[in-house]
């Protein structure tokens, strides 16, 4: 029997498409349902972040970092603040460190909830998405109480914070965690162990560890491939070494190590760890003035720094070069979603149309951060 070869059809998934998580365009070559080639085309959301940074002062950069990864703005603020502080050799009070950890872990919860919810949506499960958004909403409400903003906080400043915790905020956080922890079981019940969900995600889009490292994939995506690597532990910053938490890795419970389900489940487990960290941090929260170490003027000495922090999407690096003026000479953001998306072409080829979107969803990209 001869083999029938049809022509390949070029299909643009995006820039306007329900499950591209922003304005991403995937140029795919398809043979019927089978996708033979995937090429991500990015840049639709390019807002000249790095050029902006060369024209504004160090303080003014912070709101821009918010807008890069708008899903986890606290973590972006955090990474930037840590980088500039290292450049200035500035040490912040203990209370500030604790609050930073608390808010960035809360933001990690919110970000993971969104990632998992939209991933569920990508494979067609609508209800878990709304459950997760319901709980994410509570975190955003907490942030609203904290700093008035729901998405773009501008909260973590170089040398301190914009506000201290309001009165009774610690109790609110603990109340939320007490409410939230049992919800994880609900998610597991409705989505994680759903037979159809496992069928759709197990063994799909396997990302081997060495490919992941070569492509610079980091964060939950790398851990999903079984690599135990978390900057909070391995290249610790702030006060993360004081807390007791585990690094969950993908084990191939239902399929192969590094498949979509593993990447999904690592995030699910990470939420438990984040809850642990927040509980410890709230318990150990010292008193003090959060504005104490705020520099009057940020004028780092000449030099450069490359500082990585663990954002919900992976290694968020800031390369900052200072020429001694109040304006950064060069600021480069190494965004984890950028590297995660670059692996799409490698792992998504050869799968079916539905799988490609599942793989894309499992990588948890934010286009604001990719295009900057």
């Amino acid at each position, binding site marked *: 029997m001869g083999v029938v070869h049809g022509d390949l*059809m070029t*299909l643009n998934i995006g820039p306007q*498409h*329900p*499950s591209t998580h922003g304005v991403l365009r995937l140029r795919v070559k398809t043979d*019927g*349902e089978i996708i033979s080639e995937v090429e991500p085309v990015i840049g639709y959301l390019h807002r000249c972040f790095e050029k902006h940074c060369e024209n504004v002062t160090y303080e003014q950069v912070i709101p821009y970092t918010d807008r890069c990864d708008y899903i986890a703005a606290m973590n972006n603020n955090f990474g930037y603040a840590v980088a500039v502080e290292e450049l200035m050799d500035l040490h912040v009070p203990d209370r500030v460190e604790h609050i930073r950890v608390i808010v960035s872990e809360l933001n990690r919860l919110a970000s993971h909830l969104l990632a998992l919810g939209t991933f*569920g*949506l*990508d*494979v*067609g*499960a*609508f*209800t878990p998405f*709304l*459950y997760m958004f*319901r709980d994410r909403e509570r975190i955003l409400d907490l942030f609203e109480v904290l700093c008035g903003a729901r998405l773009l906080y501008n909260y973590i400043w170089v040398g301190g914070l914009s506000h201290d915790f309001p009165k009774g905020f610690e109790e609110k956080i603990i109340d939320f965690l007490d409410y939230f922890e049992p919800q994880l079981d609900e998610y597991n019940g*409705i*989505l994680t162990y*759903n037979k*159809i*969900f496992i*069928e*759709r995600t197990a063994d799909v889009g396997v990302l081997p560890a060495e490919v992941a490292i070569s492509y610079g994939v980091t964060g939950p995506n790398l851990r999903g491939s079984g690599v135990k690597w978390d900057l909070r532990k391995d290249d610790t910053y702030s006060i993360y070494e004081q807390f007791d938490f585990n690094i969950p890795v993908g084990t191939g419970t239902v399929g192969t190590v590094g498949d979509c389900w593993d990447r999904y489940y690592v995030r699910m487990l990470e939420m438990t760890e984040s809850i642990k960290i927040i509980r410890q941090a709230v318990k150990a929260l010292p008193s003090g003035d959060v504005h104490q170490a705020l520099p009057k003027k940020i004028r780092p000495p000449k030099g450069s720094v490359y500082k990585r922090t663990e954002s919900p999407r992976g290694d968020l690096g800031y390369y900052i070069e200072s020429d001694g003026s109040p304006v950064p000479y060069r600021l480069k953001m190494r965004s984890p979603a950028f590297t995660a998306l670059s692996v799409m072409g490698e792992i998504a080829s050869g799968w*079916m*149309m*539905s*799988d490609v*979107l599942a793989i894309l969803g499992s990588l948890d990209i934010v286009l604001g951060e990719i295009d900057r």
Partner: protein
Amino acid sequence: MTIDQLINWIPFGADWPATTFFIAVLVCALIIFIFIAAYALTAIYGEVKISSFMQDKVGPMGQGVGFHTGKFGLLQPVADALKLLLKEDIIPALADKKLFIMAPFVVFIGAFISFAALPFNQHTIVADLNIGIFYILAVGSLSVIGIILAGWGSNNKWSLYGGMRSAAQIVSYEIPAGLSIVTVIMLTGTLSMQGIIEFQTGTIWGIFPNWIIFNNPFSFIAFFLFFISGVAECNRTPFDIPEAESELVAGAFTEYSGLRYAFFFLSEYAEMFVVSAVATTAFLGGWLSPVSGYFEGPVWGLFWFMGKSLFLVFVMLWFRWTFPRLRVDQLMSVCWKVFLPFTLVNIFGVAIWSLIVG
């Protein structure tokens, strides 16, 4: 009320038989159309509200100042319908206009004419055909032609994908659905809808209603096979791959707007009802009361029929808001590798069961 009775009522029936027949058909069509519209509005409201309860939200609510959507959002479906009617009707410049315009109506006709053979109660059936269930299965697959027309005529890659997927899916699932019905027909020995229901009167051991689903283990399985195949034929989650919104935008319906889209919408809901009604008739005793000898009569009959059918519609909604979506190859392998062998075994099983027990 069958159509024959209607013809007899019309006073000038004897003089102008053709006109009379035409008028009678029109009246029936009008009644069915009104029924479908009313049912669709209810179903949309139900879908919105039920999904809200399942998803921990309130859904449409008539709160605050102004008209809004009435108490509990009861007017929401009306607002939806009005919106769809008033929307601009867009036909893409490069679309194949004839096919594009025709498609929604073809889809709707498939669902619409199925209603002609649905027995709402002891007397209410437009035409009690002697091949009733066969007729419904036959016209039910008309909708696939419409969807392919829509997919091709839109001149859009997503639509084409949706159309092709839909064709593959509906044609495949016709087979297990049809074969499941064969088990019923083997037991009842009739294709007439009323005949199938009448077969189910009485009780088993004086307790259970003598419905086909309880008749023997094979028909019990056949019910689930038929219902799930029916869900797949309606393109509902978890089998909604032809319009998978996260993959194909809206599949075959991507380019449609306004009234034409409303017709697709309407026929989807109508088809859900038809599938539920057929499942009710063939397996759940149609308009028969679950307690034999009680709650019988035309009004109760209508109640039982609608109750059972709408319950199955509710189950479909329940599916939709609970399950993720299958992939197209998984969908096919479920059909051909699981359902088909099971239905074939069922047929043999029922045959042997009839020989031994019945």
